[in-house]
C-alpha cells in the first residue's frame, strides 16, 4: 500500500471526509473544490499558469525562503524551551544543549544553518525577481513588501546572533551595532536604543531576545501573508505577455442604477483567470501542490544534512575585555564592515542608505513593462548590467571581509597558514 492509496483510504473515511470535505479529487471540479475548501490550500488559486510551475524560472527561491522560515519557527520554539536570555545563563544553556539535552545540538544546528540559508535564499530571491523584471507594474508594492521581508530577515538573523552569548555573538553584535552608530544624527541614538546602553550587555540581550522571538517573527509572518496575498492579487507569478491591468476603475455614474450589484461585479481586476488562454492553465491540485510538497522535502532534507555533519559554532563565553582580533560582524554585514574599514562614513552611512533607498524606489523608477517574465531580457540589458555590477561588488567585499581579513583587519591570504599568534596561551 503506497502513500497514495493510504491517503485515499483515509480521506474516504468519515473522519477524513469531515476534514477534507472533498475526497481525493477525481474530476476537475473536485480538484478546484479541493483547493477552495481547504484553509491551507485556498491561499493559492485553483488553477495556475504553466509558466509559474517552471522551476527554471522561479528557482523556487520564494518557497524555499518560506520553508526555511517554517523550519526556523519550529526549531526556534524547541530552543526556547531551554534558552534563558540571561548573560549568566545563556552560554551555559548552549553547553547543556550540546551535552545533555536530547537532540539539543541537532536542533540548534538546524536552526543555525536554516538561518544562514534563509538570509541567502532571500537575497537570491531578490536577485531572481530583479533579473526577470518581476517587480514591474502591477507588482511594485509586492517588491516593497519583499524589501521589508529582506530587512526583517536580516534583523531576525542579527538578533539571533547574540543569543548564544559567546565571543562570536558578543563581538559580532558589538561590531554590527557600531556600524549602525556611524549614521549621522540618528546613529548614536539608534545604537543606544538597540543595545539599551552603550555596550552589549544584559539589556541588549533582553532586547534582542524579545525582538528575535516575538516582534520580528510576528512582523515577518504578517508580511509573508501580505506578500503571498499580493502574489495572487497581482496575477500570480510574473510571466511574459501578461496584461498590466490591475483593478479597473469603474465609472459608477455610467452603471445602470436600477439594479443591485454583486461583489464580483464591482471588484474586478487581475486574477489568474482573467484574460488568459485556458490552454496555458493547469489545476493547482496536483500540479502545484505536489511540486511544493516535493520542494519542502528537499529543503528539510538539506537542512537535516547540514545539521548532522556540521555543528553550529560556539566560541568561548563572551568576554567584554578580550576582543578577538579581528572582531567580525555576521557574514552578510562583512561587506559593509569592509567598506567601514576604508571609511566609516561611506561604509556605515552612505552605502547602506543608498542600497535601501535604491531597493525601495526601484519599482517606481523602472516602470517600463519590457522584458517581464524572462531572465536577463535583452531589452533590459542596462538594468541587468548595473544590478550585476552592484551584486558582484557586494559579493567581492563580503568575500574579502570574510576570508581575506586577519588581525587588525590586515590583508591575509586564507590558503596560506597564518603566522603563529603572538600572544598564545
Amino acid at each position, binding site marked *: 500500500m503506497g502513500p497514495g492509496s493510504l491517503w485515499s483510504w483515509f480521506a474516504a473515511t468519515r473522519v477524513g471526509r469531515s476534514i477534507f470535505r472533498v475526497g481525493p479529487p477525481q474530476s476537475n471540479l473536485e480538484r478546484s473544490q479541493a483547493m477552495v475548501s481547504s484553509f491551507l490550500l485556498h491561499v493559492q488559486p485553483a488553477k495556475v499558469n504553466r509558466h509559474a510551475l517552471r522551476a527554471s524560472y522561479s528557482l523556487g527561491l520564494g518557497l524555499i525562503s518560506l520553508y526555511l522560515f517554517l523550519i526556523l519557527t519550529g526549531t526556534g520554539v524547541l530552543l526556547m524551551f531551554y534558552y534563558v536570555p540571561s548573560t549568566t545563563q545563556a552560554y551555559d544553556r548552549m553547553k547543556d544543549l550540546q551535552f545533555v539535552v536530547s537532540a539539543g545540538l541537532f536542533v540548534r544546528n538546524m536552526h543555525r544553518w536554516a538561518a544562514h540559508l534563509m538570509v541567502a535564499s532571500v537575497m537570491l530571491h531578490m536577485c531572481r525577481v530583479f533579473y526577470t523584471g518581476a517587480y514591474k507594474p502591477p507588482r511594485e508594492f509586492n517588491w516593497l513588501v519583499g524589501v521589508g521581508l529582506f530587512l526583517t530577515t536580516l534583523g531576525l538573523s542579527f538578533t539571533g546572533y547574540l543569543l548564544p552569548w559567546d565571543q562570536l555573538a558578543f563581538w559580532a553584535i558589538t561590531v554590527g551595532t557600531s556600524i549602525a552608530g556611524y549614521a549621522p544624527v540618528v546613529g548614536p541614538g539608534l545604537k543606544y536604543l538597540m543595545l539599551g546602553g552603550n555596550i552589549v550587555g544584559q539589556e541588549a540581550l533582553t532586547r534582542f531576545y524579545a525582538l528575535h522571538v516575538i516582534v520580528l517573527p510576528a512582523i515577518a509572518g504578517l508580511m509573508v501573508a501580505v506578500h503571498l496575498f499580493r502574489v495572487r492579487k497581482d496575477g500570480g507569478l510574473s510571466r511574459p505577455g501578461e496584461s498590466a491591468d490591475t483593478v479597473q476603475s469603474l465609472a459608477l455614474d455610467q452603471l445602470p442604477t436600477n439594479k443591485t450589484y454583486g461583489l464580483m461585479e464591482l471588484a474586478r481586476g487581475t486574477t489568474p483567470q482573467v484574460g488568459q488562454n485556458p490552454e496555458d492553465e493547469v489545476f493547482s491540485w496536483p500540479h502545484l501542490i505536489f511540486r511544493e510538497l516535493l520542494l519542502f*522535502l528537499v529543503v528539510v532534507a538539506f537542512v537535516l544534512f547540514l545539521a548532522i555533519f556540521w555543528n553550529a559554532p560556539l566560541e568561548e563565553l563572551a568576554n567584554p575585555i578580550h576582543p578577538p582580533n579581528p572582531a567580525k560582524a555576521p557574514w552578510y554585514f562583512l561587506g559593509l564592515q569592509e567598506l567601514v574599514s576604508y571609511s566609516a562614513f561611506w561604509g556605515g552611512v552612505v552605502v547602506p542608505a543608498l542600497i535601501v533607498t535604491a531597493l525601495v524606489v526601484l519599482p517606481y523608477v523602472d516602470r517600463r513593462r519590457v522584458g517581464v517574465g524572462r531572465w536577463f531580457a535583452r531589452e533590459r540589458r542596462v538594468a541587468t548590467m548595473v544590478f550585476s555590477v552592484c551584486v558582484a561588488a557586494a559579493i567581492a567585499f563580503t568575500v574579502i571581509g570574510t576570508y581575506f581579513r586577519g588581525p587588525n583587519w590586515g590583508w591575509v591570504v586564507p590558503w596560506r597558514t597564518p603566522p603563529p599568534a603572538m600572544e598564545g596561551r
Partner: protein
Amino acid sequence: MDNGSLQRFYGWFSALCVVVGLLTGLGYYRDEYRPWKDYQRRFIAEEVRRAASPEQRQQAMRTPIQIQQILLPELNRVDRCTTCHLAAEDPSYGGYPQPLAYHPRHDEHPFDKFGCTICHRGQGRATTTEDAHGNVAHWDQPMLPLKYIEASCGQCHEAADNPAAPRLARGAQVFETVGCRGCHKLGGVGGVVGPELDRVGARRSPEWLRAHFLEPAAVTPGSGMPPQKLSEPDIDAVVLFMLSQTGEALPGFYASMKVIPSAAQGLHLFQQKGCIGCHSMGGQGGKVGPALDDVGLRRKPEWIIQHFRDPQTVSPGTVMPKFGFTEAEARALTDFLLHKRDQAVALEIPALMSPVDRGREVFRKYGCAGCHGPDGKGGVPNPNAKTAQQVPALTYVADGYTKPELRRLIQGGQREIPALDPARPPPPLYMPAWGTTIRDAELDDLVAYLLSLKPKGEDLGF
C-alpha cells in the same frame, strides 16, 4: 496530471520521504550514541561481575544509564565528570584504569561540596572526553596536568604555608624573593612596568609560563623582562604559583577556607596582635609574660590552644587577657608556636627590627630585586639603557644621593630611561613611580636600607 506524471510524483515523494527519514534516523543515532553510555555499561558489567549475591546482581543490573552531575551553584559550576568516572568515590576501584579509577584522598574535599573542575579544571558541563578534558578549541580551561595540580590549592588556601602543597609554598617564596613585584602587580601590590598577574593562571598555559620564565622575549616579542636564572624545580614551583592565580572570586564557604589554620597565619597574628609586647622570643620582647621560645616543649598542644581560647581556664589568675580569637585563629597561633622553625622568627616582628632590616623587608616586599638584583647588586639587563645596558645597581647610592633625593626618586619614578642609541627602541625597563604605594614609614626604612648597602669602610675617594 496524467497517470504517468502522477506515478513519477509518487516516486519522487517516496524517495524524498526515505531520504528525510534516513537523515532523521542518522541524526537521532548520532545524538543518541554517546561514549559515556559505553563507560557506564562497562561499569555496570563490572558491578555485575563483582556481585556477591543474586540480589546484588539484580540491583547492579537495574542501575540506570544516566548522566551524573554535581551541582555547585555557589561555584557556578555543574560537574558531569562522574558520568564517566563513576567509581571515583569507591575505594574498591583503586588501581583500575580510567575512567573507572578511584580518586584517592578525596575525603577532605568531598565531591558533593567541591565537584571536580575547581581543582582539575576542564569543562564540567561536557560529556565527551575531549570536551570535558578541555583540550578543544574555544575552551580556555583545559585540565591542569597533575604535575601542577598543587596550583589549585592556592585558590582557597594561603600559598605560603600549606603543608599539603610544598611546591606551591616554594613557588610563592621564589616569587617574593626574585622580586617579581617590582614590575608586576599581584593582589594590588607591585609595580606597573609589566602586566598585572591577578588572573594570569586562568589566562596562560603551564607551557607558556615556563617558556616565558626561561626566555620572555621568545613568547612575548619585545618583552623587557629579564630571563630568570632559576633552578629547574624553582621554575616549576613559580609556574605552579602563577597557575594558582586564577582570580576566581570564591564565595562564602570556599572563601572562608582562606583562613584555614596555618603556621604562617599564626605568625601573622602573632605580629599583628602585639604578643611581643609581653612575651619574648629569641631574647627580644617584653618580660611581663614568659618567654615563648620553647613553649612547645613545655606545654601540650591542647593546653596552648585552650590558653588562646580563654587563658583563665588553664592558668587561673594570669594577667593575659582573653583576646577572643576565633577557633581558626587559636589553631593558627598554636600551630605557629609549635612549629616555629628558628629564632629568626622574632626578627621578623617589625617593632623589634632595625630600620635597615625593616628596609630590607620593604625591598623584598615590593620586588625591587626583580630589576636591581638581589641586595641591589644589579646585573639585570635593560637593552639599550645608557647605564651599560643594565638596570643600575644600588650598592653605591649612598655616594650619589641624599635621603630626600632618594625618597623623591622612588616616589616619582623615572619613566624615561636615557637610551644608549636613540635610533634603537627605548629601554623596556623603567623605574615606576611608587608614590604612596610604599607607605611613608616603609619609605624611611627602605632609604635607610639602601644607604646601608655601601660596603663598610670603602671610599671611592672622588
